[in-house]
């Protein structure tokens, strides 16, 4: 593989990693606050659909993004209500949200557009355009630096850059602010937060809502930046892959960037090398495309060392002494 080939793969990996990164950070906020969320998938899907639909109707991708975030937030509110207010089982609530999103997007999509659950293709202002970074064209010819800057870093939609920005932002919020301290504490020992006079319920709702906003970005990116419109089940398990990445990343923001990029890279490989001849053995396409999912299983089976989840994760908080 030549240098330009590597650049192209990395470029493609960055695009494919972005929705995973948003979803992974979304899960990070929720799980650090002690709310497990396997409904990331459903939220991404709902956001993808509504953002595409609104972008199509209004021709404005920003309104589409907003609609996507609203869709995701609504599902977050359901999850919050079920798991925080009514102290229900967080896994079951998440499963229900995934089913709900999977069904409702197709039903509403068919009712609105009659295209078998798809939205019409988005064009022009209804999609996030690719941004050319300053001087990208000027230095394209330079060796090494040129391709890295002009082809790898430049030429992505604004959401890719925003996603990357979210990593240090999440780190800063988590480790440098009062909110972050409380958020981490409520995921480890909510009783400590409660007895310190801080509302456990309030913190957990805040976390779940942040999770909703970030999933909204993930979904909108899928439908309006990575693709040009919504296709049924287009999230394709990304919510679950993001959860695997979250475990791989040991619930830390910078690691999350690394983990999601690794998944993006595998995805990019699968797309590029439809069939691969490895030392005389013909690797089938299906295997290449299954790589991210195989890695997910490997990670979830615990082959990557011990990852200690937030200690109060998944447990509803009941006041007791």
């Amino acid at each position, binding site marked *: 593989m030549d240098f330009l080939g590597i650049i192209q793969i990395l470029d493609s990996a960055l695009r494919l990693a972005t929705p995973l990164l948003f979803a992974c950070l979304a899960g990070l906020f929720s799980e650090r606050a002690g709310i497990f969320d396997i409904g990331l998938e459903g939220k991404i899907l709902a956001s993808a659909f509504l953002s595409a639909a609104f972008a199509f109707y209004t021709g404005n991708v920003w309104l589409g993004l907003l609609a996507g975030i609203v869709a995701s937030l609504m599902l977050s509110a359901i999850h919050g209500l079920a798991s925080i207010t009514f102290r229900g089982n967080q896994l079951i609530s998440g499963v229900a949200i995934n089913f709900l999103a999977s069904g409702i997007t197709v039903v509403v999509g068919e009712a609105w557009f009659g295209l078998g659950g798809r939205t019409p293709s988005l064009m022009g202002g209804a999609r996030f355009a690719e941004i050319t970074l300053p001087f990208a064209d000027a230095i394209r010819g330079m060796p090494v630096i040129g391709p890295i800057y002009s082809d790898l870093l430049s030429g992505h939609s604004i959401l890719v850059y925003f996603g990357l920005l979210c990593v240090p932002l999440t780190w800063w919020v988590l480790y*440098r*602010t*009062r909110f972050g301290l409380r958020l981490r504490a409520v995921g480890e*020992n909510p009783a*400590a937060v409660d007895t*310190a*006079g*801080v509302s456990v319920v309030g913190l957990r709702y805040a976390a779940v809502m942040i999770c909703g906003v970030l999933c909204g970005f993930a979904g909108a990116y899928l439908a309006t930046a990575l693709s040009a419109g919504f296709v049924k089940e287009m999230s394709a398990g990304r919510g679950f892959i993001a959860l695997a990445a979250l475990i791989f990343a040991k619930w830390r923001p910078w690691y999350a960037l690394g983990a999601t990029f690794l998944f993006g890279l595998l995805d990019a490989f699968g797309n590029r090398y439809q069939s691969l001849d490895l030392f005389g053995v013909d690797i089938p396409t299906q295997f290449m495309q299954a790589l991210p999912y195989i890695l997910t299983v490997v990670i979830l089976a615990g082959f990557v060392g011990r990852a200690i989840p937030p200690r109060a994760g998944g447990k509803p908080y009941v*006041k007791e002494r």
Partner: protein
Amino acid sequence: MTAAGTPPDPDLAIELRGISKSFGPVRANKDIALRVRRGTIHGIIGENGAGKSTLMSILYGFYKADAGEIMIGGKRTEIPDSQAAIDAGIGMVFQHFKLVENFTVLENVVLGAEEGRLLRPSLAKARKLLRQLADDYEMDVDPEAVIEDLGVGQQQRVEILKALYREADILILDEPTGVLTPAEADHLFRILRGLRDEGKTIILITHKLREVMEITDTVSVMRRGEMTATVQTADTSPEELAELMVGRKVLLRVDKAPARPGKAVLEVKNLRVTDVQGVERLKGIDLRIHAGEILGVAGVAGNGQSELLEVLGGYANGTGTIRLNDQTIDLTGTASDARTRRARGIAHVPEDRQREGLIMDYRAWENVGFGYHHDARFNSGIFMDNAALRADCAAKMERFDVRPPDPNLAAKNFSGGNQQKIVLAREIERNPDLLLIGQPTRGVDIGAIEFIHEQIVALRDQGKAILLVSVELDEIMALSDRIAVMFDGRIIGERLPSETDQGELGLLMAGMTGEAAA
């Protein structure tokens, strides 16, 4: 003191008037009146379930009282949540610490009392203040240490520092010495006296009469949700307090005849246990227990006592030799498990009855039936004879005075003492040669303690061997015929109860052997 019209007394740090609280049909607090004078250490004692914890939870905003009023410093105060309690100058040190284990001391202290939205200035300020508090009150704790690396004594100091950082004037401590060594408890009492001399008010909830006598100025006694008496500590005696707590005279000592040890029942040589994390928990234990003898194992919790019980009971593996009635017991876990141990004559009352002794949601008869499932009396090959199990349970409940004697009641609906009696009935009625018994009276009220102690002594007098593990020194002293002290996975010393005292045992428990302590 129920008259709401009485003028408030500013000399009182806390005054409670007519506090009542019910949980369903259970009246946890009935018309409680309490007056705590400023700058004193005020003890509140009572059996489990007497309502002490409920009362303090109301004071700290965990529960809302159904009726009554709270006066703080002579002012009527509403405490709907913990923040309100903190604002009113109340700090609470819970029995189970409310610390975030993987945070530093500093982060725990600051949590909820930050200066602003950013963390750095809060941490800097707290660091400075902690140093000052450490100097003032002898509370040396490294601010950057992570909680899970600290010992329980230090963790407790962090809880006190948390309260002081929030400028608490009133400090409530719930059973603070349960997890401490005698030396650590003494240190805590020094800290508390220092705080009192500074003018702070301290409420100490405990069931240990010795502590009440040692440190409090005033003591209030609760029984069955009511405040039965408030007396000056100097004017009372442990016997009087015990009587007030239980409502009748109790024996604080166990009447028992001298032991008549027979042949050795259990011989343990060089027993070692390594846990799943690869930490060696038992580092070569040698012991011997004879028929008709109680060997008491004393020690601060976590020094290997639990592992000793587990490996003897057959649910942990180890190396070394264990001989029961002159026959070797396999320790690798493949040929010998808890069931075969039981068949060979070992019965086990585990330390944590709610997790290991009982299934809390199962009925009493189901719990009593555990371990008897292969017994031909109850098992016809395919079907269990549940009626026979129920009848057997009813008989055992009768003999062990379990109240209420209802085999159909779920285990969780019995009080701690009665739960323990259920476990004890199941194990003792196996007629074992060796009884392993861990923390027999943890969370058990005084009346039931008496009964349980009598049963243990009666079993000994039938010529059985008993291994008693307890963190309560009083219990070890009262029951044991010989005392072994465990420290750091070893038996650090063995004493006869007649030739030792709590002071010497306390030193051993802290890891100081006789020569070093002398």
